[in-house]
């Protein structure tokens, strides 16, 4: 081949290579993207069934339960408007705390519970994941007793707290036994 043909051939090969690589990479990207949703978006049905996504919000105070013989934990994630019950079997991060921000990655099960594969918490005392900060709704919040106060007015009645699971009462039911790996 003459140098000119060679250069053309190389350029052509490079172009084909770039197109193939870009297509594969974009496919891989689409397959491994996880969207971020707030509890309100989850309750409103924004999430496709079976989709893996990241759920962010506050861990509602007083809702964290740990099984005493396995690593199963349950807690409620809220954006002060809606809430989602989260179940996680594994080690919670050091900075995971009730009343503070968290992001969990996983999917909604048939029972309406969010099964987390991964739970993240912020990595220093004052840092809040920006997504969680954006997802939080303003809510009268009494820091002293850590309870959410719901004023009885017509405006806030629409914001009645609802969980994905029909009733939060099921939280108090004993946790299912999970075998240790």
């Amino acid at each position: 081949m003459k140098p000119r043909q060679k250069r053309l051939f190389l350029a052509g090969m490079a172009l084909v290579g770039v197109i193939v690589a870009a297509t594969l990479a974009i496919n891989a990207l689409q397959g491994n993207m996880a969207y971020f949703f707030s509890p309100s978006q989850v309750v409103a049905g924004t999430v496709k069934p079976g989709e893996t996504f990241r759920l962010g919000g506050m861990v509602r105070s007083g809702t964290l339960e740990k099984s005493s013989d396995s690593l199963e934990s349950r807690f409620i994630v809220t954006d002060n408007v809606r809430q989602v019950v989260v179940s996680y079997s594994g080690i919670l991060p050091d900075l995971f705390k009730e009343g503070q921000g968290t992001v969990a990655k996983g999917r909604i099960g048939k029972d309406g519970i969010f099964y987390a594969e991964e739970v993240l918490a912020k990595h220093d005392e004052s840092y809040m994941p920006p997504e969680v900060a954006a997802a939080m709704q303003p809510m009268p919040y009494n820091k002293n007793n850590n309870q959410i106060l719901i004023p009885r007015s017509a405006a806030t009645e629409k914001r009645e707290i609802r969980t994905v699971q029909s009733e939060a009462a099921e939280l108090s039911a004993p946790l299912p036994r999970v075998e240790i790996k």
Partner: protein
Amino acid sequence: MVPEIGHFALVIALFVALVQTIMPMLGAYRGIPELMAMGKPAARVQFLFIAVAFFMLTLAFIENDFSVAYVAQNSNSALPIEYRISAVWGAHEGSLLLWVFMLASWGLAITIFSKSLPEHFLARVMSVMGFTGVGFILFILMTSNPFDRLIPAAADGRDLNPLLQDPGLIIHPPMLYMGYVGFSVAFSFAVAALLGGHLDATWARWSRPWTTVAWLFLTIGIVLGSWWAYYELGWGGWWFWDPVENASLMPWLAGTALIHSLAATEKRGAFKSWTVLLAILAFSLSLLGTFLVRSGVLVSVHAFASDPERGVFILGFLVVVIGVSLGLYAWRAPSVHGGGRFEWFSREMLLLANNVLLMAALAAVLMGTMAPIVLDALNLGKISVGPPYFDVVFVPVMLPLVILMGIGPLVSWQAGDARPLFKKLRIVLAVSLVTGIALPLIAMGKATLMVAASTTIAMWVILSSAQYLRDRIKRNVGNKGLSAGVYGMVIAHAGVGVFVIGVTLSSVFSVERDVHMRVGDTVQINNFVFRLDEVKPVRGPNYHSDMARVNITRDGEQVAVLTPEKRTYFIQTMPMTEASIDTTLLRDLYVALAEQRDADGWALRVYHRPFQAWIWSGPLLMALGGILAASDRRYRVSARHILQARRKTASASVSDGAQA
């Protein structure tokens, strides 16, 4: 007084840097030797004042001066002295000061090791270095002054982030920044060469040792960061494809490509304009990394600081640097003549393949890192890109690279002869295949096809590098011995093989157990039995801790006693997991104390990770190779030759003048 002196020194350094930017460039443009000569002393004075500023901040930390806001936020009187010093770069303001200090140190190094550089070229290099300095000092003074006073002064400090109270974090940032900032030298050389219109093999020869040194610091910095994440943050993982990690990997990939393309440019005059582009790219990616980490655009576990004002400043600086240098490139590069011809099967072609593959990997990492930021900016939703994406796009690109790495050095420049080479490599291939399959079988007692393929490729790199070394030694009989560069390359390439073995065996055969244990409980992994003996409270200088004692036995014989801790620091009241690890050449045993589940029950994470140490040893070998390559005599010899040649021409022109 101390912080005021520091602040003042920084302001003076800014003006000196301005002089360093303007005067030598003007001198080079107008051909005024006096102005050009100002570059060197300006760089030295700038270093001096920045060193003073850096020392003053360190002094404020040592003396527990909590009237300085930055000290009050990041230190505490109970903090041990070594962490008070490393707290200087524990947060945003101080780490930028470290950045600038490193930049000034590189500038100083150029003034010392630049005797062979022509004055026009050196003047332009100093000017570009000065410009970078101006940008970052201005950034510190305008948005992130570490010397700001706190009025009234705090009684005590808020303490250093407990995650950073760790020996690994004392040296990780300086190493990483040495690497990041080191690419500014390659960048300055490239811009100076573009300005002067002398893009040739000499330019490449001058750039090579600087680029190699920057690259090896970056390599060590990344390894230390990964190691820190492994025992401090990661719960046993060592690479998370976190944006902050990617921010350091991307300049590393560009720098690796640059090292190889510089070789072709120096030896054969090939890829000249591409090499310049890579030098610009490597430094731009360093700046991009700084932007990503420092601006707070990331949703990342590493992003400790966030402030949009700062982000806009760095972004502006990034745009100026990339815009101006690419503009310059577009203006000058077309006049650069191509290098010598080369055939399909030649060292040049393989180096080209190296660059193409590294760029493909870089593009994939860049896409995965930037996609969440871009989509968020366009309001298309908040996404995160998971590690599987990076594994899927990165590994298939790297494997051919590693395979070609075994052949590359053995092929001649310009036109290689394939047939005798393959005849010779047949044996190497056969031995790689046998050892590659045998290694996992012997070490782990099992192997899958993927594992065997991967270890075979690793053995292939190691053995063909050894073959190359043997050839060179054989050919060198009677001569003065091989250059350090040859050993450097062989060791670095073998390091890649070691790394691949470590990654393969560790990722495939690691066994992880998250268990709920009470004192006396045992858990077994492979043949190792882990028994929780006790959990007792322990008090540290600025924390209290629950320390577990885990006894590990194998076939009844004691192997190790590990003492993982759960610390709670007094000031920041944040719990910290201190893993405990027993490392041997062939495996790591890893125990982390997770959380207290009830009165006497604890959650523990227990690992058996085969060949984990190889993951760090491989890159350290690469860095060692870099040290050898950068210390090659020929860079010094060539400097001396050029100097002598110049003296000769100088004396010749003097005598010419006398005759006229």
